[in-house]
């Protein structure tokens, strides 16, 4: 009897084992994942650091330590971008204490700054700093207060101060100018700068932003913080400076001419109320706003995907489409925008989506490399300026990819980026312009 029970148990166990083997998942070799080799930091002239710490002292300590670890010596110059939320004076004081003698230029960025490590958004605030240490570049910084000076005068004063700060003569034209201004008067500021350096010196930058367009933006120059000012930097260098400035939206067939405009308001397009024409062009998406006159309708979010573009023509070059962001529909069916418009401006409707906007983090750097015949990884450092409105149009979960896409194209090059409320850039043959919903990149590289 016992023998039979044992045999029975053995049979059951064998069958059980067979079933287990039959149903057991096969163990496969997992994919091996490695990290690419990073070149040694000793060759770098630029280094960056960042922090999402809400405390000014700790944030500066973290970011500067990170940056210094990538540099051989203390930087001559540093780009500094932060979100709102810090005590900016304290922030700059801390930085100046840790980086004495380093020229500081920068401002606030919508939500936070970006580096090659990612998009840095803190619970309270965040910052990023990129220091440059090179004898091949002479940096100068200057600033001006727009509450005290006209925009044009402010542009002049800031650039003159920067030239002086670089130890150069007024007649010596810098290779490039960077600006961070309070939003509102960028075109006039550009004219002021051009009054000093001429129209052929590229001016790149973006208007400082906050998180909700409520005037909390700031501009930084050394230890000075402006709330309605202009921060400016000039660079004199023998290095190669490559850049690209574009909106990147596809151009639609909808086009017209501004027949009545003043400053940043378009009253009429082709002799008709601008908002009505704009609504027709966009396929009636603003019908509700037009049906309820008597109030100002903010349309920033919807208009992000339907910018108007000024068609800028110049001999020998392709037309350039300078994107302008419609801001609101007014009771008189005029259209408020984020850039100056004038009678006779030829305009077209652009149309895009967040996919196009996210792709710009690849396509704009790619165009830079192609245009200036740069190879991936050849850059020494780069500055990225990206419209905050277009960044906000990208789904939040996709935003961590922004800097990764840039890095994918330009290679292992230190860069810093900010998200702005208006972008300024230079288009060869067309000149310096202020636009909206635009992005730009400037890459410094060996000649």
């Amino acid at each position, binding site marked *: *009897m016992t023998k039979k029970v044992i045999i*029975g148990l053995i*049979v*059951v166990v064998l*069958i*059980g084992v*067979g*079933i287990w083997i*039959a*149903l057991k*998942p*096969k*163990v*496969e*070799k*997992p*994919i*091996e*994942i*490695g*990290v*690419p080799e990073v070149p040694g930091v000793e060759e770098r002239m630029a280094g960056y650091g960042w922090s999402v710490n809400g405390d000014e002292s700790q944030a500066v300590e973290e970011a500067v330590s990170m940056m210094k670890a990538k540099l051989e010596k203390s930087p001559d110059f540093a780009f500094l971008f932060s979100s709102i939320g810090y005590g900016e004076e304290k922030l700059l004081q801390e930085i100046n204490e840790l980086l004495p003698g380093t020229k500081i230029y920068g401002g606030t960025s919508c939500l936070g700054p970006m580096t090659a490590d*990612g998009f840095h958004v803190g619970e309270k605030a965040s910052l990023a700093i990129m220091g440059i240490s090179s004898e091949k570049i002479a940096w100068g910084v200057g600033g001006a207060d727009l509450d005290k000076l006209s925009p044009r005068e402010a542009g002049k004063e800031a650039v003159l101060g920067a030239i002086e700060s670089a130890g150069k003569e007024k007649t010596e034209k810098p290779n490039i100018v960077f600006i961070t201004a309070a939003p509102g008067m960028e075109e006039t500021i550009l004219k002021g700068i051009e009054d000093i350096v001429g129209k052929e010196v590229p001016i790149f930058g973006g208007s400082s932003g906050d998180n909700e367009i409520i005037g909390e933006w700031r501009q930084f120059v050394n230890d000075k913080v402006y709330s309605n000012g202009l921060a400016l930097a000039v660079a004199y260098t023998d290095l190669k400076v490559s850049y690209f400035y574009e909106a990147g939206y596809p151009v639609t067939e909808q086009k017209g001419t501004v027949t009545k405009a003043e400053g940043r308001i378009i009253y009429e397009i082709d002799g008709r109320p601008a908002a009505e024409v704009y609504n027709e062009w966009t396929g009636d998406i603003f019908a509700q706003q037009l049906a309820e006159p008597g109030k100002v309708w903010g349309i920033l979010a919807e208009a992000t995907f339907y910018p108007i573009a000024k068609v800028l023509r110049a001999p020998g070059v392709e037309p350039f489409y300078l994107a302008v962001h419609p801001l609101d529909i007014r009771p008189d069916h005029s259209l408020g925008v984020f850039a100056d418009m004038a009678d006779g401006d030829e305009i077209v409707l652009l149309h895009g*989506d*967040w*996919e*196009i906007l*996210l*792709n710009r983090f*690849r*396509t704009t750097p*790619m165009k830079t490399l192609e245009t200036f015949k740069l190879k991936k990884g050849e850059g020494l450092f780069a500055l990225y300026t990206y419209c905050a409105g277009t960044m906000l149009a990208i*789904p939040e979960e*996709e935003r*961590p*990819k922004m800097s*990764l896409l840039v*890095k*994918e194209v330009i290679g292992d090059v230190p860069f810093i980026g900010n998200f702005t409320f208006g972008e300024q850039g230079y288009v060869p043959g067309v000149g310096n312009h202020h636009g909206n919903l635009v992005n730009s990149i400037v890459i410094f590289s060996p000649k």
Partner: protein
Amino acid sequence: MRKKSIFSKIFVLITLISLIAGMLILTVFIRERTRDLERALIRENKLLAETATIIIETTYLEHILPFRTLRKIAEAENITFLWIVKPNGEIYYADDPEMFGKIIDDPSLGTEEIVAKDSIDPKVGEKIKLIISPIKREIGKKPWSLYLGVSLKEITTAQRRIILNGLIFFVLVIIFVVFISFYFSRGVTQPLEQVRKGAEIIGKGNFEHRIKIKTGDELEELGESINRMANDLKRSREELEEYSKTLEIKVDARTMELKELTESLDAQVKEKTKELWERIKELERFRKLTIGRELKMIELKKEIKKLKKGEGNQKL
């Protein structure tokens, strides 16, 4: 030692065989069903990967990546990860930003044909199906690869559901089989028990008892044989009893004869005894009457004794 009944032996055997057979059938069924689901999952996701590849190839010509499409694919319930990998193994695009720029080592990298294989999710360590689709970005160059990690959770869930349903069905079948085997076993063992009991009753001498089995098989024949045997035994017993009775009558008759003979002899003895006693009495009277004539009397006594002796021999 307690003997085990045939009923329990048959019952346990049938139940055990059914249990083993059921387990095997269930295993085969689950395995086949799982394979079917896996094949369907692979087919579906291969199609997804091919579609994504076409979109990537098309949009590449416009220098853009189809983020919306890739996002939609990555958001699909079964997709655990999505990578676009360069021929050198560098991840060019990933749904998870942490994977950007990482280097992978996989033998299927750069495949010219779409591949589906088992693998492990490098992040969570779960078993997955890996779909690798070639992205032909530039003619004459090694293709890039679209890696799609496909979760098997759906299959696992379905497998669990199948196992659960299968087990419920299996238990029901086993219960049914137990009942069937119980009745079957009883159908076999009950007539045997009847035979056993009948034989026992008959064995105790009740030859009138009859085993009534209507199974139409050997058991019925066995019952009938025992019944016939009981019949034979009964008849033999009756014959024996009859013989016994005859013998008794004969014995009684002989006994009667002997009794009568005895009684006759007794009567004769009594008569003779009576006669003797009368003679004795006469002699006594005579003795009394004939005093002195003792010698004569002795002689007479001797003669009486002689007579008595002669009578005794006659009796014998």
